[in-house]
């Protein structure tokens, strides 16, 4: 059926001591929940998304956060089915290739790589901002915090951060369980602290631009326009990005039947509560105006918590710096693994040059692919710093689009792969066809709408080239770049594109 199975052609007798490479460590509901929250990295996602979301939908932010979860949920259900049907595959690239053949598969893989490269650069950008902010708080010298706005220092610091993360990833290091627990607990405590402090200031009348709470904030359909609504949903997908991991950790959980589902539910419950709390508190404290601390202020919106932590938390603002810095640093390192492994798999199936398929003999990690991911992320970051007046906002908007693209491709891959067996029973119909289909359609609509809207020069940071919005140009460069690379690859190495390395099929095929 596939040629993913390793060819056991070793000359000498070979025995495996432990059957498969899966860790014997078993993860319970709590452990899987911690993994889920740690993947989402709420401190980082909130600081990156609060501003752009308010810019899109204003006070409807809490409602948008709630409905934004729906497409993520629908697609993740499909992900889970693909994951259990093709246990040897693990990325959008292999899934989409198996379902749709090499061309769409290649672009699906490309979408994933691009999305991760964009998020790597955004993560590094947030980490750099908070690093200098923390130095400033530590030494009581605001000049240190301002160093982050010096482009040269900023780009070079980012290089250091990315290279450090890249190196740790190359060495195959993973965050230990204990560190992960501590960081997750710390993030939750600091974010709740921030929210409570903001609400207390609202109560005592010291809030920056007090905005009375309204139940109408939870109605997403009060968003100013359909474009605003889709932009908000696109950002919400970004804030839940990573949640699907809890559904696919079943291979190492104590009870693969129940643990992932319970952990995923618990994770999303905690994340919902946290996001709503922080979103409401931020709205009540700052308002949506364009004043110094207003959520609509373009000067602060790419990294809102950096600006608000000081006024809200006073001397304890440094805790927020630590929480965001640690969550983005850990995310930075672990996020390298995704694109590196996808490029590695693409190299292996000859969809990318062979060099990408090399594994470091010492550290057993895809060394070349990891290095390439690091370099590309940094070049992207440096280019964006030069071109955009609000690099963080623009990258988040681009990112939302990219996530919609590769999630959408994967969702449709699920529908297509299971097309014949989906009609055999109700459960299969719902999980393998209906849910991913609806999710995929929603993502497709969001993708198309935001792509169209981003042509407007006023979109995002209002950076534009020749009157066309920078975000649109960026998306086009990334997509056409992918198509060009794909065609070059097709010329140089046709095997993959002729379906000789990874065959197309559906769930009912038998070898």
């Amino acid at each position, binding site marked *: 059926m596939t040629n993913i199975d390793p060819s056991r052609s*070793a000359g000498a007798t*070979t025995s*495996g*001591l432990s059957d498969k*490479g899966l860790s014997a460590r078993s993860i319970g509901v709590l452990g899987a929940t911690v993994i889920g929250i740690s993947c989402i990295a709420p401190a980082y996602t909130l600081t990156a998304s609060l501003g752009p979301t308010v810019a899109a939908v204003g006070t409807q932010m809490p409602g948008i956060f709630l409905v934004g979860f729906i497409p993520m949920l629908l697609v993740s259900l499909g992900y889970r089915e693909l994951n259990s049907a093709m246990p040897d595959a693990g990325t959008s690239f292999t899934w989409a290739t198996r379902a749709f053949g090499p061309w769409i598969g290649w672009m699906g893989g490309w979408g994933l790589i691009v999305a991760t490269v964009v998020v790597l650069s955004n993560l590094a950008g947030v980490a750099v901002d908070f690093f200098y902010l923390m130095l400033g708080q530590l030494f009581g010298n605001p000049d240190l915090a301002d160093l982050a706005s010096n482009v040269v220092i900023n780009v070079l610091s980012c290089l250091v951060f990315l290279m450090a993360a890249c190196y740790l990833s190359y060495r195959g290091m993973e965050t230990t369980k204990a560190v992960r627990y501590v960081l997750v607990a710390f993030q939750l405590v600091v974010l709740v602290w921030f929210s409570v402090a903001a609400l207390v200031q609202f109560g005592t009348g010291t809030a920056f631009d007090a905005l009375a709470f309204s139940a109408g904030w939870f109605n997403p359909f009060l968003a100013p326009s359909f474009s605003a609504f889709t932009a908000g949903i696109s950002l919400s997908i970004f804030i839940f990005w990573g949640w699907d991991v809890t559904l696919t950790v079943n*291979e190492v959980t104590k009870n693969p039947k129940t643990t992932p589902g319970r952990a995923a539910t618990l994770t999303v419950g905690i994340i919902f509560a946290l996001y709503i709390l922080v979103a409401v508190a931020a709205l009540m404290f700052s308002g949506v105006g364009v004043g110094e601390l207003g959520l609509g202020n373009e000067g602060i919106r790419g990294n809102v918590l950096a600006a608000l932590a000081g006024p809200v938390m006073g001397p304890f603002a440094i805790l927020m710096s630590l929480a965001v810095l640690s969550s983005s640093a850990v995310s930075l390192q*672990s996020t390298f693994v995704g694109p590196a492994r*996808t490029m*590695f798999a693409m190299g292996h199936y000859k969809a990318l040059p062979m060099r990408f398929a090399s594994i470091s003999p010492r550290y057993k990690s895809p060394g070349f692919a990891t290095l390439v991911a690091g370099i590309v992320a940094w070049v992207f970051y440096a280019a964006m710093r030069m071109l955009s007046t609000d690099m963080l906002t623009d990258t988040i908007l681009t990112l939302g689009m990219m996530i919609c693209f590769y999630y959408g491709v994967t969702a449709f891959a699920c529908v297509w792969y299971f097309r014949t067996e989906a009609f055999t029973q109700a459960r299969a119909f719902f999980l393998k066809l209906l849910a991913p289909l609806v999710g995929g359609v929603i993502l497709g609509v969001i993708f198309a709408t935001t792509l169209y809207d981003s042509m407007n020069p006023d979109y995002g940071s209002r950076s534009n080239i020749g009157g066309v919005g920078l975000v649109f140009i960026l998306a086009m460069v990334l997509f056409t770049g992918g198509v060009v690379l794909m065609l070059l690859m097709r010329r140089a190495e046709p095997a993959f594109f002729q379906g000789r390395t990874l065959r197309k099929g559906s769930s009912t095929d038998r070898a």
Partner: protein
Amino acid sequence: MTRVANYVVAYEATERGNEAIELGVALARLTGAELRLCLVLPHSSAVPAKVGASASDFQALLEEQGLEWLAQAALRIPADVVATTNLLWADSATEGLLQAVERFDSDRIIVGASRRGILNRFTIGSVANSLLHASPVPVALAPHGYRAPEQITRITCAIGTRPGWRTLLDSVLAFSEGLTVDLRFVTLVEVDAYRTHATGGEAVADENESGAHLRTVLDYFSTHSRAHGDITTEVASGHNVEAAVEALDWQETEIAFVGSSRLAQPTTIFLGITAHRMLHALPVPLIVVPTGTHARLTR
């Protein structure tokens, strides 16, 4: 003895891994043991990250690569040596190798030193280093660039006066039983090491004391040894351990034995400071033997 001894060879697809194989071959030719070439791959579960790149894809391809590496490793084994290749999954290389030792009931672990060593000498890599602090069986270290000789002709045993020397001797006795190989016992004497104003007389006294100890060693060994070959003793002195090691002649076809530190747990090894410094100057493979009271004697 019906049981055939076996040695775990810590393999990785690098020069260091090849050197470990070379030493494995040399020792297997000497004692007739079988080799277990072990490649340890890291357990990695789905790495928790925003991009749900589950481990399975990578894991399957990594396994494929591992088997390919092992197939290459098997080609390095000459016809006169029996070897199996084994793919292991563990959280760390050290953990995997220790599990293999337990599983195969192995007698020794053979590991290459770090590539970064200069002048063909030892610098300990991280895997070797952690094995040297945790292994229940002797650890054999291959120096940089090591190639197996046709035959090992001499075993040099560096022996001190501290408790544990007898266990080291017993280990060498067990290892050399029935073999045709020369044995050389040396003690290393540091002159002027901590007595800056040492007189020539004191140094001579030191050497005499060492000489007397070596005679005790020789008596003990000659009574028990069932090896065929010449037995010699030597006292090497130098202003430090490295110089003392360099003062000795070393043949390309020899291996060295040293006991582990008193700091070790009763059953495992722990490389002492002197042994560690010896390593820096040693041009031949070194086997570090557990000398704790509960150490198991192996072939």
